[in-house]
């Protein structure tokens, strides 16, 4: 089933790309190219072959990780995609960690105190947090922490192996931009999930026995509350892989989103196809992983049917 989805996705992607107006050969040669040179270039790229042939050629290479060679950069595409994907992954993963670290306590407290003003306040704060675009958060963070107080760099990327300290410093602001907004979204789900759990019978029993609300929760409820939260986390991770592109722009981080945008602008069709396929696979994989995690978290599922 997974494979069928992949195959269908690959056809959809290829079909879409072939409809894009704009000739890669023309773009590669730029202004002042004459028709003869363009024709030659097309032959070099192989874009003058029938579409079915081009599709089979491309799809055939995928299982072995051969994404072809870029029209524009003349570099092999595969390693490039992997590299940029990892960069985005670092960014998104750190953002999600920050989000979870903020959202869980906030959501739990908001749920436990949902009848009190403090709970309502936290809930309101998370609502406001969602309403702010993450690139706006990024712009503001740069203005304050990079330009005004030169605590963090305004952007750029250092590979972790090159200089771990610079890498970490450069990761803070963009990850926080992503993380804060995600935290707001997540907090609401946490609150809702915890509220549901609080109403369950076994919690009432625990409370009746005299346990405080937090301890009752931790002992008995967290697993159940975790399920919807984990689902949301999975969905968010999948969307963030491309959603981080705006933050990548603001902070000049060479991630997957930027690679995609450049590829589209240059009509680097093979590159774009490759990036989209990788994204699609990533999303499908994440969903699969989330299903796996369920089994770990939910004791009922674990005990076998």
């Amino acid at each position, binding site marked *: 089933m997974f494979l069928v989805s992949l195959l269908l996705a690959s056809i959809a992607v290829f079909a879409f790309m072939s409809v894009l107006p*704009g000739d890669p050969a023309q773009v590669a040669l730029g202004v002042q190219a004459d028709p003869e040179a363009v024709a030659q270039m097309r032959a070099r790229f192989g874009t003058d072959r029938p579409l079915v042939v081009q599709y089979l050629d491309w799809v055939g290479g995928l299982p072995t990780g051969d994404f072809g060679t870029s029209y524009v950069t003349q570099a092999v595409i595969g390693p490039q995609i992997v590299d940029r994907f990892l960069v985005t992954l670092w960014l998104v993963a750190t953002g999600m960690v920050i989000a979870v670290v903020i959202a869980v306590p906030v959501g739990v407290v908001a749920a436990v105190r949902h009848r009190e003003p403090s709970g309502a306040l936290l809930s309101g704060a998370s609502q406001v947090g969602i309403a702010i675009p993450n690139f706006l958060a990024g712009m503001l963070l740069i203005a304050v922490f990079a*330009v005004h107080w030169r605590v963090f760099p305004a952007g750029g990327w250092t590979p972790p192996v090159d200089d771990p300290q610079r890498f970490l410093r450069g990761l803070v602001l963009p990850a926080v931009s992503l993380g804060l907004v995600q935290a707001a979204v997540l907090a609401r789900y946490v609150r809702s999930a915890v509220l549901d759990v609080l109403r369950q019978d076994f919690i009432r029993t625990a409370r009746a026995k005299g346990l405080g609300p937090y301890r009752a929760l931790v002992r008995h409820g967290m697993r159940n509350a975790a399920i919807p939260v984990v689902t949301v986390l999975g969905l968010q991770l999948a969307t963030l892989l491309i959603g981080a592109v705006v933050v990548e722009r603001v902070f000049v981080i060479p991630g997957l989103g930027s690679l995609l945008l450049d590829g589209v602008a240059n009509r680097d069709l093979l590159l774009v196809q490759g990036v989209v396929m990788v994204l699609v696979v990533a999303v499908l994989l994440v969903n699969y992983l989330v299903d796996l995690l369920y089994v770990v978290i939910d004791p009922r599922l674990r005990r076998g049917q």
Partner: protein
Amino acid sequence: MDRPFSRVTALATAVLLSLAAACGAGQTADPQGGNGADGGEQEGTELTVGFAAEPANLDFTTTDGAAIPEALLVNVYEGLVKINQDGEIVPLLAESWEISDDRTVYDFRLREGVQFTNGEPFTAEDVKFSIERVQSDDWTVSLKAAMDVVESVEAVDDHHARVTLSEPSNRWLFQMTTRIGAMFSREGVDDLANEPIGTGPYMLDDWVRGDRIVLERNPDYWGDAPGIQTVTFRYFNDASALTNAMLSGGVDVIGTVQEPETLEQFESDEYQVIQGTTNGEVVLSFNNGREPLSDVRVRQAIKHAIDHEAVLETAWAGRGELIGSMVPPHDPWYEDLTGVYDHDPDRARELLEEADATDLQLAFRIPNLPYAVSSAQVVQSQLEEVGIRTKLDVLEFPARWLEVVFTNHNYDMSIIAHVEPRDIVTFGDPDYYWQYDNPEVQQMLDEADSAQEGRRDELMRDVARTIAEDAAADWLFLLPNLIVAAPDVDGLPTNRVGEAFDLTELTRG
């Protein structure tokens, strides 16, 4: 009970392995021969310069775009000759040269003791190789057409190269200062996209695609060592990110300012702002080949309707110069033609009435570049005041703009900066996208190419004046060379006269 746990273990292992692999993230492309200077970095010998457009690869013989020669020409690759800040041709790899009386034979005396970074010596054979390579299929960039006039190249001896042209051409020697004149090693063209091998004062040290190019001083350089040991070109596809990097110390220099209205925050003792000229004419192009702009009166009306000072003020914060034709002030045949069509909306309306064109609706198709988007809105608003309505289409650049406007000529007006030096010759090509076909101009351009210098300048001035008076296009303004730098940096190029960002004169401290 076992299954979920082993699944979890598998999961955990996978995560740990990926983490280990991910630590190398962001390191694509091979560094050439190791990192860093010997003996560690010294204070004041490092510089980071920020730019906008990133080079797609390192091979300007097959890839168009300004970013590659910007970094590599003059710094890594050298030609026989070079252009100085005043626009004059000066010796570089050629110590001197003699031109025959009929001006078709050039004898170049080459500098001795020059070697490429692959260890091979630079000789006349390399000159022959490089020039013939331009004419071959290995070069695909259209600028190569300028080498068509070369009939033969001869390596008379190791340090004497003779180039014979099929006819006298003033243009040729000038073009040898651009990328087509770069000297390549016979043994050094295997992987130009990733490994540039030249004779220049710098060599490639590292290249992180999408982020930066690092150049290192070439220890075997034939001339004076450049002032800065390591120069890093950093690329920002977002103009504000570049500005922020400057403000937060991420770069020491902004090589080309993309947002001039932000310059006021750099007017302080902490920064220096440099403004000079470039070859970048921002042209409001007219499609002379179809109605209604085929009627000269309509074109003239448009030119009268535009208040160029307001356009410059609004679109580029007043930075830049007004020009009346396709000639920047540093070209030898420059003449101030800004007065040919002054801002006269009444005259514009008169002309439109004469031409029976009082109800125009023009297709205004522009690329999505900042200067174009800004200028277009001002122009649109000014044209409305004289009764010309325009439909603004912002096209993705490069792909869609090239297709729609440049190749298919499907437009009435457009705006784009033409940055090649001495590109007034495009008005002599009737097939160029502005479809301007004036046999008189074509003839004058031909004559100017083979004429003696004095006559050449005269003819070129005539060409400039003719296309201005004929309203073949409108020249909104000349893009300024705008640089912001830390105060201790010296030797920055005031004028951008060629494609290169010249690092050779830079010093710090």
